[in-house]
């Protein structure tokens, strides 16, 4: 349903902006219709950057701007579709053997910017680089189940991956954040060579990256002649640059900006629903939240519509304590939780927690977290429990809250539900912030990832989600829209969730 509606939605927004333009006749200059693709032009896109952290090595990519640049310059074997399921990219198709431990990948005919074909050898070399035991690339843990020594290039366009265990969701691995394919032996990324829709022109760290159209791109050449990424860390600066005509695309705007410029003839707001989940994480292995009643009480105390309205300024949807609303395998058949103060009071009394004060760790590491914590602390008042909001250091926040405290603000971008479970909810997961560790849950996961039949697999995922919904540690209260602003003449901007293939994807964008 999600994928079906996407086109319709795009058409609708395009139609609406035309209506706005023609309707408000005062600015006759902007007559271009964004609904018909047009070739040519340079699009300048403003993103927040990381100064010293910025690199063009796609395996080191960490920031949104690096992910967007990597996407323009390179390809992955697979990427995430609008429903956050893996879609073939450089891999034309994949076929597992019956045991799900050997995967045969057929590469499509693609060439790097230097004219060399993309070969099986480049794929193996790229993955070997990511898996190098002396380095710490982000995709390493995702690729860790590949048995590289036993993987091989069958021919130039066929790779056979050996896995350490049966894994039916292997395409999710191919789509992992940062798992880009670079030419074999590439180590110097000052003038990077990829197989993506744009090729490298120039780079001034912390300031600008200029790329140009790759006419030979396997999926068809981009509409734009040139694409320039510029860095503006302040959201207000990105908005001002867009309003002042200095850029045509501004990434990551706040709901407040979106609200105050809705209907403006100077910029168009594009929203990508279900992009970022907003949550509170309770650690289930220690007091007070090792008590299941108390966790349920917290679930029942959250006034989700109020949180979405006040923290996200309405730019989002309520959550149901489960990750991945609208994604493949999401358990949308579980009833939506609503606030129930009486039941929560009863549960708090039954847990013997009346009069208890709980610290809620938060920080400005992600937008809206401090506000959400404050609003929630307010909603909890009168329940017998008190929440004390503690604002921590934003630079080390995620590492701090992984270890310490009992309740913390949490936020995550889109990823497949399987990946979310693997990284955060198994006994051996590296970033298990809720400390959820259940042998029976681990067993369900193992079963899911070795079940070939998609319907059967979904039903196992739903079982897992039912137990998380009933007694898990994540109070997922809302899903934020991802908001980008663009000049009114920019067409082709997708509304797929952030971190998926179509997000910040400029080869499908045009200047009207």
């Amino acid at each position, binding site marked *: 349903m999600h994928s079906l509606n996407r086109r319709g939605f795009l058409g609708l927004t395009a139609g609406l902006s035309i209506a706005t333009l023609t309707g408000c006749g005062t600015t006759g200059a902007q007559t271009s219709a964004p609904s018909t693709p047009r070739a040519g032009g340079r699009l300048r896109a403003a993103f927040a950057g990381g100064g010293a952290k910025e*690199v063009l090595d796609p395996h080191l990519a960490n920031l949104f701007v690096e992910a967007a640049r990597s996407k323009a310059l390179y390809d992955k074997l697979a990427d995430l579709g609008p429903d956050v399921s893996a879609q073939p990219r450089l891999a034309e198709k994949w076929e597992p053997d019956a045991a799900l431990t050997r995967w045969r990948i057929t590469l499509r005919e693609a060439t790097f910017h230097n004219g060399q074909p993309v070969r099986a050898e480049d794929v193996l070399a790229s993955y070997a680089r990511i898996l190098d035991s002396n380095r710490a690339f982000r995709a390493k843990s995702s690729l860790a189940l590949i048995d590289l020594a036993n993987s091989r290039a069958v021919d130039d366009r066929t790779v056979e991956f050996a896995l350490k265990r049966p894994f039916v969701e292997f395409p999710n691995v191919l789509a992992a954040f940062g798992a880009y394919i670079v030419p074999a032996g590439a180590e110097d990324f000052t003038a990077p060579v990829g197989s993506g829709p744009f090729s490298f022109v120039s780079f001034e760290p*912390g300031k600008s990256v200029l790329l140009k159209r790759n006419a030979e791109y396997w999926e068809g050449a981009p509409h734009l002649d040139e694409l320039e990424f510029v860095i503006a860390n302040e959201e207000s600066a990105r908005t001002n640059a867009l309003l002042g005509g200095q850029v045509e695309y501004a990434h990551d705007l706040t709901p407040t900006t979106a609200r105050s410029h809705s209907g403006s003839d100077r910029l168009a707001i594009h929203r990508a629903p279900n992009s970022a989940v907003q949550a509170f994480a309770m650690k289930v292995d220690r007091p007070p939240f090792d008590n299941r009643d108390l966790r349920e009480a917290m679930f029942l105390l959250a006034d989700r519509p109020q949180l979405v309205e006040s923290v996200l300024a309405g730019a989002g949807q309520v959550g149901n304590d489960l990750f991945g609303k609208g994604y493949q395998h999401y358990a949308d058949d579980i009833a939506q939780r609503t606030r129930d103060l009486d039941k929560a009071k009863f549960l708090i009394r039954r847990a013997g927690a009346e009069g208890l004060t709980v610290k809620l760790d938060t920080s400005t590491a992600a937008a809206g977290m401090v506000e959400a914590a404050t609003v929630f602390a307010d909603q909890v008042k009168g329940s017998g429990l008190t929440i004390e909001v503690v604002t921590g250091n934003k630079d*080390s926040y995620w590492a701090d809250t992984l270890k310490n405290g009992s309740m913390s603000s949490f936020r995550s971008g889109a990823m497949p539900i399987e990946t979310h479970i693997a990284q955060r909810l198994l006994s051996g997961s590296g970033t298990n912030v809720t400390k959820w560790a259940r042998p029976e849950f681990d067993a369900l996961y193992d079963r899911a990832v070795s079940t070939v039949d998609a319907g059967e697999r979904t039903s196992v995922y739903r079982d897992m989600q039912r137990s998380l919904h009933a007694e898990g540690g994540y109070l997922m209260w809302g899903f934020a829209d991802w908001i980008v602003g663009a000049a009114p003449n920019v067409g082709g901007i997708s509304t797929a969730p952030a971190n998926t293939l179509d997000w910040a994807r400029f080869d499908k964008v045009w200047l009207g």
Partner: protein
Amino acid sequence: MSLRRYALRRLAIGVIQVLAVVTVVFLLVQALPGDAAVALAGDNPDPRRIEEIRVAMGLDRPALDRFGSWLWGLAHGDFGVSLFSGRPVAEFLHDGLGPTLVLALLALVLLIPLSVLLGVLAALREGGPLDRVVTTVTVGLHSIPEFALAVVLIAVFGVQLRWLPPTAVGADLLASPAVLVLPLVVLVARPLCSISRLVRAGMIDALASDHVRHALRLGIGVTRVRFAHALPSALAPAVQQVARTVDWLLGGVIVVEAVFVIPGLGTILVDAVAGRDLPVVQGLAVVFAVTTVVVNLVADLVVFRLAPRSVAIA
């Protein structure tokens, strides 16, 4: 004390000051929660991965060891490499220094004549309408923080009227000078107020002083007395304030750089501290410390020349 001996002594103290600053900066960054590995891991803080990053960055070496080898490199003119990108710190400094220097120099070029002119005019018309207008405006303007002024100027002249570009995003500063107008107005506004107030006060004192009255009694022309006799001693406190302003300008004027998107030293510093990228932070500390010491030294020497009695023989 001779000017030369005074200068040499101040220079020796300066070297010690610079060393002290970088040591303190190193200790402070060490004391911040989390290190570069934690900052880089961000929202994916898998402890195993953080440990791997730590080893890959060489952060598993003892702090004293790292500081020692950094100092050793510095003695050989080597600022080290960024923990994240592996690029030499000198390159960062070079990249960031350009925009900051352009801003700082242009600001000074505007600031010094304007503030002296304003101060002298106000002093010569002490108590008159001009003096009162200048006083009211400078005191008022001085109370507006850079941030607020910048936001208002951008909203009015950048976004609403569209007379000037609201940011310097992606622009080459010298090739498109229009982007510099608003940042320079913001940068000059407050120091203009404080320095012109100092010049005014100094000038009023100087005009009332014995040596000026004496010069007038000797029949020297009024203009000559004002500019050759009164002004130099009136400038002494202002020169020291200018030195402080230079520190402030080079300190990146973080707010101005952030609001107008000018990738100067301030931006680099903020990013480097957030990332705990110690070699970059240390490199910046050296630049700032050296600048501060040198600028203050020059200011004191100038004051020494202008009004020898006002420099305490320390």
